[in-house]
């Protein structure tokens, strides 16, 4: 067996299908995930646009969809949330960029299980197709929101979308769970087993740490959602009553009895809260990497950053009850969940201060990836500050079913994670495609998006405190809510602008692939392993050799060094660590 075969398990594929469609190469699979997420994010964004239009012009005749009825609005809401949470926030930062760059950043030729990697992408793809198909079946998309609360989700006759549409929704989620489990165990095994010589755990880039810990969260969380989904399918199709008590729907007594809707809430949020961190941790990793690189300074408190990631991941499993303060839980449980939730603020604050400490006094280069990384920190703080409010049962109960919560999680989990994806896209685009993205368009994209998202989501906090309820399709019928419509109108106009500027990003992405300025192998003068290899990286990442690592990931501006960055593979001249 030739030596290259020893390092790399599978030969470079020949035909188009094995090279670009059913590829085993983690880089191709990463791009497949990325483009799937790109399709998903524009789909989800289009749905949110329809919702925003409906909120201020409830009777408008829209092209393509006509007048949006209340049940259509709830269907849009469900599908927007599900697509965004599962197929964008979970798929792009973790499965997309993680797949592409985790093996390269640790010096591995590929993932530990390439076939499993391919299967996990195609399973995700099937899940996406099944989810989208819910739009086109009789009754349309389900009404129960992305959280799928029982008994609404468990009773097929509870509403028009609750028939086949809801079955498809649950099936899609179950398939997605299986795909995520395959991906997660692949990520963990790769990180444990395939680190190049010298890549000790404490020399791993913080992106790798973030992907690694996210994978552990996924491994532990998705298995529970899978069970919850199976039981929900049984309730719907085999007549069991896990989640359904004795209920009357439209004057008709259902055959169920004895079940508990709270069981679904427990199982769902045991998954659901770690899921929030699955969405945001990769963004934290990217922000750490970029802020260090573009400030030309080592990351402030590398070890603290690693331990904070671990603490957030660990505590993330103990706070699911804060989504259920409304369920009438014992005040003692609520107190414990509340305390633990506020304690998560500590590692989060450690990360934030370390990011600021890294920028402080650095020679900051404000390229577009850095702008988006700073935007990430900004949104993380703005969205995070409303967290301690909602962590307290006494404040959560009046705020919970209002726009306050919508504003909170869109800022911290939605848009912050999206900014992480944008930052990663602008940063790694030169490595993936050999060209840089247009910097002017990128800056326009950044400033409009940052201001636009604040304009959309900040007012939601005021709406919530004023008592505007979430998930209502129309506010024109209730006197006190009509007074708030001008603010909703402002948010819709802000959404028009913000969505329009995303088309600039899309144009920049595809235009730069063909026409962008050619990039060198290390355009940002960064230190990690992906910048030591060719652009784009060859099939086995390092052209038949395995890199030897001598330095930590963020050795910038080392005193006495010839240049202001020391690559991880540079010879170990000065004593390190």
């Amino acid at each position, binding site marked *: *067996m030739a*030596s290259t*075969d*020893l*390092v*790399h*398990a*599978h030969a470079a594929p020949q035909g188009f299908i094995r090279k670009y469609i059913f590829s085993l190469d983690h880089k191709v699979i990463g791009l497949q995930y990325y483009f799937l997420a790109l399709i998903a994010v524009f789909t989800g964004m289009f749905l949110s646009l329809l919702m925003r239009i409906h909120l201020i012009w409830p009777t408008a005749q829209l092209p393509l969809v006509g007048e949006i009825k209340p049940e259509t609005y709830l269907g849009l809401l469900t599908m927007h949330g599900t697509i965004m949470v599962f197929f964008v926030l979970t798929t792009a930062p973790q499965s997309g960029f993680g797949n592409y760059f985790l093996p390269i950043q640790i010096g*591995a*030729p*590929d*993932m*530990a*299980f*390439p*076939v*499993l990697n391919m299967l996990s992408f195609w399973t995700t793809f099937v899940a996406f197709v099944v989810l989208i198909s819910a739009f086109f079946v009789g009754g349309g998309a389900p009404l129960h929101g992305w959280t799928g609360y029982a008994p609404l989700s468990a009773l097929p006759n509870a509403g028009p979308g609750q028939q086949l549409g809801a079955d498809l929704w649950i099936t899609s989620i179950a398939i997605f769970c299986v795909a995520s*489990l395959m991906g*997660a*165990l*692949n990520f*963990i*095994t*790769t990180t*444990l*087993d*395939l*680190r*190049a*010589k*010298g*890549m000790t*755990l404490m020399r791993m880039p913080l992106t790798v740490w973030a992907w690694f810990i996210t994978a552990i969260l996924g*491994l*532990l969380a*998705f*298995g*529970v959602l*899978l*069970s*919850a989904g*199976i*039981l929900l399918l*049984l309730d719907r*199709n*085999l*007549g*069991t*009553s*896990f989640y359904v008590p004795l209920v009357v729907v439209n004057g008709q007594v259902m055959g*169920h*009895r*004895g*079940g*508990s809707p709270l*069981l679904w809430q*427990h*199982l769902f949020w*045991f998954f659901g809260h770690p899921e929030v961190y699955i969405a945001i941790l990769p963004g934290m990793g990217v922000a750490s990497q970029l802020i260090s690189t573009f400030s030309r300074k080592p990351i402030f408190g590398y070890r603290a950053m690693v331990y904070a990631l671990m603490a957030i991941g660990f505590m993330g499993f103990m706070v699911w009850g804060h989504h259920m303060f409304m369920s009438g839980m014992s005040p003692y449980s609520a107190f414990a969940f509340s305390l633990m939730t506020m304690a998560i603020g500590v590692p989060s604050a450690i990360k934030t201060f370390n990011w600021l400490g890294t920028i402080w006094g650095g020679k900051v280069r404000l390229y577009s990836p850095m702008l988006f990384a700073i935007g990430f920190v900004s949104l993380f703080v703005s969205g995070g500050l409303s967290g301690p409010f909602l962590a307290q049962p006494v404040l959560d109960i009046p705020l919970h079913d209002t726009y306050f919560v919508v504003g909170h999680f869109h800022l911290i989990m939605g848009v912050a994670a999206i900014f992480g994806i944008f930052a990663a896209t602008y940063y790694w685009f030169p490595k993936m495609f050999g060209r840089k993205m247009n910097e002017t368009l990128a800056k326009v994209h950044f400033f409009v998006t940052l201001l636009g998202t604040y304009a959309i989501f900040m007012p939601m906090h005021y709406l919530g405190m004023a008592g505007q309820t979430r998930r209502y399709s129309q506010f024109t019928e209730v006197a006190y809510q009509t007074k708030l419509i001008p603010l909703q109108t402002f948010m819709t106009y802000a959404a028009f602008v913000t969505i329009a500027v995303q088309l600039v990003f899309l144009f920049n992405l595809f235009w730069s692939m063909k026409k962008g300025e050619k990039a060198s192998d290390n355009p940002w003068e960064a230190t990690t392993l992906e910048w030591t290899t060719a652009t784009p990286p060859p099939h086995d990442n390092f052209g038949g050799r*395995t890199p030897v690592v001598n330095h930590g990931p963020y050795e910038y501006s080392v005193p006495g060094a010839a240049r202001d960055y020391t690559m991880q593979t540079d010879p170990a001249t000065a004593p390190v660590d």
Partner: protein
Amino acid sequence: MADVAVEQHGVAAAYEPSLFGTYSKKIGMWLFLLSDSLTFGALLYAYSYGRISTPNWPTPFHSESIRNATLMTAFLLTSSLTMVLAVRASVFGKGKAVRGWLLATMACGTAFVILHGHEWSNLIAEGLTLPVFPAVPGHEASKEFANVSRTVPQFPATFFGLTGMHMLHVTLGVIYLGIVALRKKFIPILLGLWLVAWLATPSYSPFHYGAHVLLLAAIAASVIVFLKPKVYDSSDVEVAGLYWHFVDLVWMFIFPLVYLMSTRIL
């Protein structure tokens, strides 16, 4: 699947030593079992939730059910022993003995599934049933079981949910071992089993439709064998063994919780 890791033995010097000092496939399987234990954990949680929140949880199982379940347990425990012997034979490179012990393990697993299916059919005929299972023709439902199904639907729901999920795991385990032992030669056997299971079960039985799991598994196995056409070595036997023992371990939770704690004498 862990081709990179297996090859890695040859170029170990190029990499940091693995954190757990073992090959990737084994770590991958342990991770899968970790996540699967949470999947079963959620089901057991749902069972406990239902049981605790239901006043007067019924305890209808007769000694007949318990005898049957004990026999099933014996088969499953024996299969763990034969699995250990298969792993041991594979370490010493005795290919024939490996295959023999794997087939013995599969036989025990199959006996477990068949006994379990028999038990399900009897219970359904006696009236412990889910709303969608059709009534068994020519059978008089016992008053007690029918009463349990009507008044505490949580009982049959958790019973069929938990044991069904476990039975699915055992079935997939038998197929997994079959692929390890016989490679692509197992696929026609599997298709044969599917036809037998489908045709031999009456149309009112849940196993009539459940048999299609075998067809789906045969399709999935064909894809995997097509993608990874290789001879399995001792590491594959060991990893398959991990899965098999885990499925046994799960039964050690389900048997007392679902059967023994719901026996009439208690």
